[in-house]
């Protein structure tokens, strides 16, 4: 089921993480501690000038408003991020 996962990436002091590139990611329909294999994953993603990261999930069965787990990795930072995010 197609859905969209969107999150605004910020640094630890609240600075928008604009124009990041080469982000790899994985999306899970479950909570941490009960994760299965990711339903969707990819690489080469970017954030826009506002630091917004957005990807389309294709295999996830979550519907709008349901919460999954997003894991992000920026190998150039390196930065690692994880979020509980609702599908939009």
């Amino acid at each position, binding site marked *: 089921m197609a859905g969209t996962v969107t999150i605004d990436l910020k640094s630890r002091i609240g600075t928008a993480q604009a124009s990041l590139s080469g982000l790899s990611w994985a999306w899970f329909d479950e909570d941490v501690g009960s994760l299965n294999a990711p339903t969707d994953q990819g690489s080469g993603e970017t954030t826009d000038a506002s630091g917004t990261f957005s990807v389309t999930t294709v295999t996830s069965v979550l519907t709008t408003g349901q919460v999954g787990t997003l894991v*992000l990795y920026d190998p150039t930072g390196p930065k690692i991020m*994880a979020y509980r995010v609702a599908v939009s």
Partner: protein
Amino acid sequence: MYVAIVYIGAASVGDILTATGWTKDWTGDVASTTSTPRGFIFHREVPPGGLGATVDFDTSNANFDHAAVAFAITGAEATPDVIGTAQTDSSGTLSCPAVTASGTGGLALRFGFIDADDESSQPAMSGHTAINWAEDSNPGNGGGVFCWVDDQASTSVGAATASISSEEWAGQTIVVSEAGGASGASVTVNLVDIDSSVQANLSNLRWDWFNEPDPQNFNAPSDQGTVETTDGTGELVLDLPNTTLTTGQTGFLVLRDATNNFIGGYRLDID
């Protein structure tokens, strides 16, 4: 670390030992006609920086004496795999019970508590290494405590015996698993918040471990859990019995503290 104690006095006084910070794995009486010794087995993790803690007696009861031994095991699980049903009898053959463990590769610890101080050295137990022993001569005919260890190669851990001077005794068996479980692997991370404050004593941490170091290649996690804790220094150690990674190889940990709503990811090398 394990501590085994036998105190010699009236068992009817109950548990007169207090052990803050320790877990009491077993206590039981040595069937006796006179001095009625009672045995105790405690364990606890050794915190960073070493162990300065003691096991204290309830000093309100002064009518007893005791013998105690202690030993530490490197790389063992913090919680015993299985604790046996203690055996007691009055004879010249002390017997520690058979147990069935959930895994293999750990250690079988044997404990003997004897209503006498008649042994001039630690009795041998076939296949086992003698760890430590102690005796005390008072009151009555005194008491002794003896500890042995053997590799635990099978989930079926048989009974084991030692020849002693004929006396009343109690024998106990505890199996402790090797940290890391079947694979022997573990990872360690020291948790701090965004201000670098140590995140000590967090509980109910949820986590998943991936053998792949990059999310784009994640398969299903090899190991996961929901009840981990950090210690007093914020250190989190996770056993990974199912990982195929070996020491120095990098995987990926996803971690969430449901209580404080923290969530994070870490690329970590296997310890």
